[in-house]
């Protein structure tokens, strides 16, 4: 499915994070592309390759798709994507994988914990939850988001807006503070412990690098979240996106097909869960 | 090396009359020599595609093999004369490498004319023109077709 790049936004100071806003080249594709929060798609640059990227826009954002892509020096596709400019066409295959089960969570309180660059599908989720049609369906929503430094924080404008909203608690933290940073300093697991959101009637959605997940799970359990109420999204290298190529196996699960969203009880005993 | 990502940048055809020659020229001597040949209006065949490298020692044998695969009819590597290397010994180490490479490729059956090595200094515009003339005519005179180009053939379904 070809899509046109409408807008490219730089997300950080290091200039290796960009958000691509895409529009559909064909109306049929647009009507056929129905996705949910937490899903991903295979984004391809012809002749270069394909990469699984989480969808950062909300299903309620009509007519567009947004992907936030980090460029790695060794990443062929991510580098190629970053070299593109507005107006170029790229390929999108998807949506793929399962999603955060937001319908099932209606009426519950939600704690959303994100770290670093893994915030993209969480942003999709938060945008969805905050929409006029959805906000009333859910209880209290707490967002804890951390990054290595202030320059690494994604979606700064939105974060500022969220922090001003009364129907949402947003805590933004950075690992390493700087002179210009006015906000909180501290690692996500510690901030989580300090803020101690109630586990009562609540589910937690947590996404982040493996090392963050590793240290976030114990405090969550302490706070009273049972493993089946902790949802996380895994990231793996993928080729097919259909549970065949074998690359994204985590135990018997294929992250592309059975995931990327897993409840913690499903994967906590698998040695290669990565955390 | 980005262009290497694109395959078949050069001609695929074996019957092409004008061969394409990829020339790796060292920045300090041979490239300057080529420049001088140009400035002096010396005539030499337009078959070369020059790739400037810091030193002949920088040329990995893979570059040469890859150039042949991508369709070059010949590859030329030229650097400073022994003793004149900008990096003192780059070309001397390269000399050993190329001696073995040339012998090895010839052993595999690739015509020695297709892979040539030479020394051209910055003041030798005439020598550069003569070198290109020689390499081009060597390759034009070859009776055997190009051996190994990126083919469509997918091997090994038969076993």
């Amino acid at each position, binding site marked *: 499915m*070809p899509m046109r790049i409408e807008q490219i936004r730089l997300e950080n100071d290091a200039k290796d994070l960009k958000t691509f806003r895409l529009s559909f080249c064909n109306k049929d594709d647009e009507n056929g592309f129905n996705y949910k929060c937490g899903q991903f798609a295979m984004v*391809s640059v*012809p*002749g*270069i*390759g*394909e*990469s699984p990227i989480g969808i950062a826009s909300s299903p309620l954002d009509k007519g567009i798709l947004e992907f936030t892509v*980090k460029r*790695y020096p*060794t*990443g*062929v*596709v*991510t580098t190629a994507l970053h070299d593109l400019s507005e107006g170029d*066409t790229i*390929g999108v295959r998807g949506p793929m994988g399962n999603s955060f089960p937001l319908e099932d969570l209606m009426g519950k309180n939600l704690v959303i914990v994100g770290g670093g660059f893994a915030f993209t599908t969480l942003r999709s989720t938060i945008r969805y939850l905050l929409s006029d049609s959805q906000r009333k369906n859910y209880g209290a929503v707490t967002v804890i988001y951390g990054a290595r430094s202030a320059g690494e924080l994604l979606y700064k404008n939105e974060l500022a807006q969220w922090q001003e909203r009364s129907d949402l608690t947003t805590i933004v933290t950075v690992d390493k503070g700087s002179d210009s940073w006015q906000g909180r300093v501290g690692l996500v697991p510690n901030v989580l412990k300090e803020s101690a959101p109630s586990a009562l009637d609540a589910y937690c959605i947590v996404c982040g690098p*493996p090392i963050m997940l590793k240290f976030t799970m114990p405090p969550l359990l302490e706070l009273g979240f049972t493993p089946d109420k902790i949802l996380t999204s895994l*990231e*793996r*290298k993928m*080729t*097919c996106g*259909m*549970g*065949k*190529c*074998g*690359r*994204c*196996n*985590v*135990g*018997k699960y294929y992250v592309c*097909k059975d995931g990327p969203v897993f409840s913690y009880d499903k994967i906590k*005993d698998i*040695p*290669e869960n*990565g955390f | 090396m980005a262009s290497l*990502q*694109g*395959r*078949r940048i050069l001609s695929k055809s074996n019957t092409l009359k004008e061969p394409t020659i990829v020339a790796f020229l060292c920045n300090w001597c041979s490239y300057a020599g080529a420049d001088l040949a140009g400035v002096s209006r010396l005539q030499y065949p337009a078959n070369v595609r020059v790739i400037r490298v810091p030193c002949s020692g920088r040329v990995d044998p893979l570059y040469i093999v890859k150039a042949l695969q991508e369709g070059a009819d010949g590859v030329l590597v030229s650097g400073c004369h022994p003793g004149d290397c900008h990096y003192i010994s780059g070309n001397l180490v390269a000399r050993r490498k190329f001696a073995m490479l040339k012998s090895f490729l010839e052993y595999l059956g690739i015509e020695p004319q297709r892979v040539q090595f030479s020394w051209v200094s910055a003041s030798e515009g005439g020598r550069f023109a003569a070198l290109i003339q020689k390499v081009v005519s060597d390759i034009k005179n070859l009776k055997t077709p190009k051996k190994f180009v990126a083919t469509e053939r*997918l091997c*090994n*379904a*038969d*076993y």
Partner: protein
Amino acid sequence: MAKDAEALGPIADGEHGAVLGPLSDTTALMLDYGNFKLPPKRRLFPQCEVISTYADGCVSETKQRSVKTVLFGIRPCDAQAIAHLDKVFLGDDAIDPYYKSRRDATLVISLACRRPASTECFCSSTGAGPASKAGADAMAWNLGTSLLFESITVKGEAFLKKHAALLREATPEELQASKKQESATLKELPTKSLADVPKLLKNQNDPAIWEEVSSTCLSCGACTYLCPTCHCFDFYDEKQGDGARKLRLHDACMFESFALEASGHNPRARASQRMRQRVMHKFSYAPENYNELFCVGCGRCIIHCPSSIDIRETVSKVIL
């Protein structure tokens, strides 16, 4: 037989014993062979295929070719492996069109084993066996002076009907002989069953066990590329002039770079983790996902491992 389809069968090849090659009037069929070095899966799921091309801004998928093919005389273990691959590539959730077009056009006639192909055969342990029928449309028995054919599927039945002129009804003695052959071959094969392995797995989460069994693993792909059920693949995009094409290539979970992500994170960075993935995929994940043991006991990986690692021993260590 060769007239209306491309027929492939065992033909002699000096170096390899027998290869699965095109049959014609001039090539001699080699019925008395051990097994092919390369698994027949390569006929249905080739090591390298072009799946789409890109030119002038549009992608065109490769037209499905469906040359009718008869795979004659492949071993029952390899036929069983094809049945396993069918579950992966033709499963309910996502059908692989490239595999399907080849599979639909292929008729499999397996050849029962008169004796184990090698000392490493253990098909009897994995639920296959010297005359197992899964995956085959028809089965042939080499009775020395005659070939006994038995149809297994409708497709196989139709094929035998079509060539009825060449065949005659088998005598009771011949049927008897085939049964005898099967039980005689079975006697030469190991008796231990691995069918319960998925339930017996005990130490699979103990990294020390995997470190031990994989200590001499060189992380090459010989085991996976020769395995009749391994089906991991990779896509490879390459530019061609102004356009591009996408290839599908076999890949091996034993390669260090297999699961390496662009970020540098590698969930299976150690040989032991990769070994675990391969063995567990065959003996635990596949049984859970497809209800089949994804090892057919052909012994190829044991024969060809440069470090002579034996999957039978690995499994027994894990269930110990």
